[in-house]
C-alpha cells in the first residue's frame, strides 16, 4: 500500500514539475517574443542532427540484432521443400534489407541535409513523369521476379503428394495432438465425429464402432434411455432449468442417433480393413528420414494450426474438413542435434492458431529416425493396431486406452 502511495505521489509531483517547467519556458518565449509556431534555427538543427544520429543508432541496433540473434532458433530447414523455401526467404530478405537501407537512408539524410537554413529557398519541383515511371517500373520488375520464384516454390510445396507418400493423420483437440499412421495398406480409415467414444477417440468408422456408438447413445449411462427414464420418473423432482437442459440433451441425442442409424444402413463393410490396421500414436510423432509424408489434419473442436517450424511446414486444422500438407524430412533428430549444437534439441509440432487458455502448451515432440530404427519401431507398433486396441478395450471396457510404452528412447 505504502509503495502505491509513494508511486502516486511521484506521478503527481512529476506532472506539477512538468507544468512549472512549461510555464517557465512559455514566459521565456514570451520575453523573446517568439510563438510556438516559429521553429528556431537551433531547434531545427538539433532535430536534424538527431535524425541522423537516430538513423545511425538504429542501423547499429539492426546489425547487432542480426549478428547476435539473426537466424538463431530457426536453424537449417530439415525438409526438402524447406531448403528451397529458405533459399527464397534469404533472397527476399536481401532484397528487402537493401530497400530498407536505401530508402530509410535517403529519408533521414534528406531530413538532415535539407533542414531549413536562413537564406536558402526550396526548389519548386511539382512533378516529373519520367521519375514516376522509374519508380513504378523498377519495383514492378523486382516484384515480378519475387512473384515468379515464390509461386514456383508454392506450387511445388502444395502439389499433390506422390503415391508412395506415407499417409499420417494428425488429430487435434484442446490441447493435444494424436497421430494416426495408415498401417500396412497405407490407407487411412474413414471417420465420422459422431462415432467418438472413449475407446474410439479418433471416431474411426467400422461396423463395430458404429454399432457400439449407437449402443452407447441408446443404452449408455447418459444415453437416451437413461435420460428418458429420469425425465419420466415421478420420484425425481427436477429443477425446471435442469429439465430443460435434459430435454435439449435428449433431442440432440435423438437427432444424432437417427444419423447414426442411417450410417449403419449405408455402411460398406469392405472399408473396415482400412481403419483396423491404422496405428494410433500419442506424445511423440516418429518419422522416417528421406521418406515422403502426406499429413491429413483434423480437428475435434476449434481451429488449430499444425506448425512444424523446423520443417517449414504449417497447415490449419479445421473442424468439419480435412486439410493436407506434405513434406519429406531430410535430417534425423540425431544429426539435427549436432547442427543445432544442442544435445537436448527436438523437433516439435506446435499449435499456431489461438485455441484457448492452454494454447501455448499444445505440442507434440517429433523424432526423425534413420530408416532401420524407424522400421524396428514400426514393427513393434504393428502389434497394437487400432483393431488390437479396440477389441482389447471392448473385452475389458474399464481399461484405459493407452499405447504401449515406446521401446525406443530417442525422444528422451
Amino acid at each position, binding site marked *: 500500500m505504502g509503495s502505491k502511495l509513494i508511486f502516486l505521489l511521484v506521478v503527481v509531483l512529476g506532472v506539477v514539475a512538468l507544468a512549472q517547467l512549461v510555464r517557465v519556458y512559455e514566459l521565456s518565449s514570451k520575453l523573446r517574443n517568439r510563438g510556438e509556431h516559429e521553429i528556431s534555427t537551433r531547434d531545427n538543427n538539433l532535430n536534424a542532427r538527431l535524425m541522423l544520429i537516430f538513423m545511425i543508432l538504429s542501423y547499429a541496433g539492426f546489425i547487432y540484432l542480426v549478428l547476435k540473434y539473426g537466424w538463431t532458433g530457426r536453424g537449417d530447414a530439415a525438409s526438402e521443400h524447406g531448403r528451397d523455401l529458405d533459399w527464397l526467404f534469404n533472397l527476399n530478405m536481401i532484397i528487402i534489407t537493401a530497400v530498407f537501407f536505401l530508402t530509410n537512408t535517403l529519408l533521414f539524410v534528406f531530413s538532415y541535409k*535539407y533542414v531549413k537554413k536562413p537564406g536558402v529557398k526550396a526548389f519548386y519541383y511539382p512533378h516529373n513523369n519520367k521519375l514516376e515511371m522509374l519508380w513504378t517500373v523498377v519495383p514492378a520488375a523486382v516484384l515480378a521476379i519475387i512473384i515468379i520464384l515464390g509461386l514456383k516454390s508454392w506450387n511445388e510445396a502444395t502439389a499433390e503428394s506422390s503415391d508412395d507418400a506415407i499417409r499420417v493423420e494428425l488429430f487435434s483437440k484442446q490441447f493435444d495432438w494424436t497421430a494416426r499412421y495408415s498401417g500396412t495398406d497405407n490407407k487411412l480409415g474413414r471417420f465420422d465425429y459422431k462415432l467418438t467414444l472413449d475407446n474410439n477417440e479418433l471416431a474411426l468408422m467400422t461396423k463395430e464402432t458404429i454399432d457400439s456408438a449407437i449402443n452407447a447413445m441408446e443404452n449408455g449411462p447418459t444415453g437416451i434411455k437413461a435420460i428418458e427414464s429420469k425425465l419420466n420418473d415421478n420420484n425425481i423432482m427436477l429443477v425446471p432449468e435442469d429439465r430443460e437442459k435434459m430435454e435439449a440433451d435428449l433431442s440432440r441425442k435423438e437427432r444424432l442417433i437417427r444419423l447414426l442409424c442411417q450410417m449403419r444402413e449405408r455402411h460398406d463393410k469392405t472399408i473396415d480393413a482400412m481403419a483396423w490396421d491404422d496405428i494410433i500414436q500419442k506424445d511423440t510423432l516418429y518419422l522416417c528420414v528421406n521418406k515422403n509424408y502426406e499429413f491429413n489434419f483434423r480437428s475435434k473442436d476449434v481451429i488449430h494450426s499444425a506448425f512444424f517450424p523446423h520443417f517449414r511446414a504449417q497447415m490449419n486444422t479445421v473442424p468439419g474438413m480435412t486439410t493436407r500438407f506434405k513434406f519429406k524430412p531430410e535430417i534425423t533428430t540425431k544429426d539435427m542435434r549436432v547442427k543445432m549444437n544442442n544435445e*537436448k534439441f527436438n523437433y516439435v509440432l506446435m499449435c499456431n492458431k489461438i485455441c484457448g487458455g492452454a494454447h501455448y502448451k499444445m505440442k507434440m515432440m517429433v523424432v526423425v529416425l534413420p530408416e532401420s530404427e524407424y522400421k524396428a519401431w514400426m514393427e513393434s507398433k504393428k502389434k497394437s493396431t487400432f483393431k488390437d486396441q479396440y477389441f482389447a478395450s471392448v473385452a475389458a471396457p474399464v481399461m484405459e486406452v493407452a499405447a504401449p510404452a515406446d521401446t525406443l528412447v530417442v525422444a528422451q
Partner: protein
Amino acid sequence: MAAVAHEAHGHEAHGHHDDHGHHEESFVSKYIFSQDHKMIGKQFLMTAVFMGIVAMILSILFRIQLAWPGESSDVLTFFLGETWAPGGVLKEDMYLGLVTIHGTIMVFFLLTGGLSGTFSNILIPLQLGARDMASGFLNMLSYWFFFLSSILMLSSLFVESGPAMAGWTVYPPLSALPQAVSGSGLGMTLWLFSMAIFIASSLIGSLNYIVTVLNLRTKGMSMTRMPLTIWAFFVTAILGVLSFPVLLSAALLLIMDRLAGTSFYLSDIIVGGEMLTNHGGSPILFQHLFWFLGHPEVYIVLLPALGLSSEIISTNSRKPIFGYRAMIGSILAIGFLSFIVWGHHMFITGMNPFLGSVFVFTTLLIAIPSAVKVFNYLTTIWRGTLVLTPAMLFALGLVSTFITGGVTGIILADSALDIAVHDTYFVVAHFHIVMGMSAVFGMFGGVYHWFPKMYGKMMNTRLGYAHFWITIVGAYGVFFPMHFVGIAGAPRRYYDYTVYNDFDSNALEMMMDLNQIVTVFAIIAALGQILFLFNFFYSIFRGPKAPQNPWNSNTLEWTTPVEHVHGNWPGELPTVHRWPYDYSKPGAEEDFIPQTVPLADGEEEH
C-alpha cells in the same frame, strides 16, 4: 426532418448564413449533442485517446507476463486484482483476453474511429470550404454510436467470465463456443454487439464524408484541387462503405450461430465432452467474410495517416508534394487493390493453393503504388527547406515506419514464405510497424499540426520533440526485435515461451532476451505518452493563443477565424483559384500562396 436539414444546408451553402443571426447555444447542444463537425471531430478524438490509453495499458500488462513469465508483479495485481492475476501472475485466459481487447480497440477504436473519425470530421468541411457536413444530424449520430460501442467494448473487460478471448479476429468455432474458452460467453456477446454498433457508426460517418466531398466543395474546388488529405479521407470512406457491411454480416451470422443454433460456421464439433449436432457450416467462411473487411481495414487505417502526412510534409518542406496526380492515382490503386487481396491472410487455412497464388499476385501488386508514395515523399523533401515541427517529425517518422513495415509485407505476401512465418511474431512485427506505428505517427502528426485549428491554442513544441523522440525510439525498440523472434518461429498469442525449454533451449534463451528488451522499450514508450497527454490537455486550457495561419499553409482551413464559429466562415465561403501546394513557387514573394489567391497575370497553374 431530413428535408428541413437539407433546405437549411442548401441555404447556408449560398453564403447567407449570417442573415440568420446566432442564437445562444446551450451547453448540451454545444458540447454534448453537437451537430457541428468541429466539435464532433474533437469528441471522436477525446474518446479515441481514452480508448488508446486503455489499450496501451492492456498491452503493457501482457508484455510484463511475456518478459517475466510466472513472476509476481504489483502492476498486474493493481490493474487485474486477484481474480485475473492471482498472486500477481496473469491467468492464461486473461492473457488472451488482454490480447484480444488490445487488438480490437487499437484497430477499430483508436485507428479507425479515432483517426478517420477525428480528421475526416474536422478537415473535410474546412479544407473544402463547406459550412458543415452534408448532414449534421447523421454526423452526431455517428459519434454517439461510436461512443456507445466504446462503452460496450470496455464493459466486455469487466464481465465475470472474462472479455472476448478469441483474438481480435474472433475466428469461430473458438469465438462461438463458450465451452471452448470462458471469454466466448457474455464477453464475446458484448464484443459482437459493440462491433455491430461500431459498424453502423462507421457507415453513417463514411456516407456523410462521401456526400460532403462530392457535393459541398466550394466554388473553384475541383476534385483535382483538393488537398491529398481529402482524397485520402474520401477513398477511405468508400472503402468503409463497401467493406464494413461484410463484417456486419459476418458478425450477424456468428451471433446467429451463438444464439439461434444455426450452423453457418460450425460443423462436426465435440467440445467440453458435448457432441454438437451442427453440421455443414464452415469456419473458413467466417475468415473470408472477416478478411474481406479486414484487409481494406488496413488501408482504412493507413490512408488517412498517409493523407495527413502528405499535407504536413509538403507544408513543412515548403515544397509542393511531388507528383500530386501520381499520389491520387496511388491512393485509388491501393483502395482498389485492397479489395482483392484478403486471401493472403488465409494461405494455410486449407484454401485451394491455386486461389492462394492469385492472392499472392494481387497482394504483391500493392507494393507498387506504395513504392510510388514513398519515393514521392522522398522527392518532396529533397531540396526542400524543412521546418522540423513536431508534426513534421511525426510525418517523417511515418514514412520511415511505412518503409520498414512495408518491406516485410513482401515476405508475408509470398505464400511460399508465409508457410514458415504465418502467425509468428514476424507478422506481429510487420503489422504493428506498418499499420500500427504508421497510423499512430500520422495521428500524432495530425494532432500537432491541426491542434491550433481544433482548439485555437498552440501545443508546446519542446514537449512535442521529447514526445516524438521517445515514441520513435520506443516504437522501433519494441517492434524491431520481434522480427527475430518471429524468424525463429515463435508463434504469436503464446502465454509463456518457456515451453521452448522442452525442445530448444537455445531458442528459448534468445526469445527471453528479446522479450525483455521489447517489454522495457514498451514501458518507456508508454511512459513517453504521458508527455503527450500532459501537453495536449495543458495546451487546451493554458496554451498560448494560436495565430491565424501558424504553419504558413495554403489550405482553406487556415482562412477561418481562430475562434470557432458555426458555419466556419463568418462571411461568404472562400473561392478557390489554385491547387493547395503552391509552396516556394518561383516569382512569388512569399514561399506560400493560399488557395484563395487568384492566379497572377501569366501565372500557370502547376
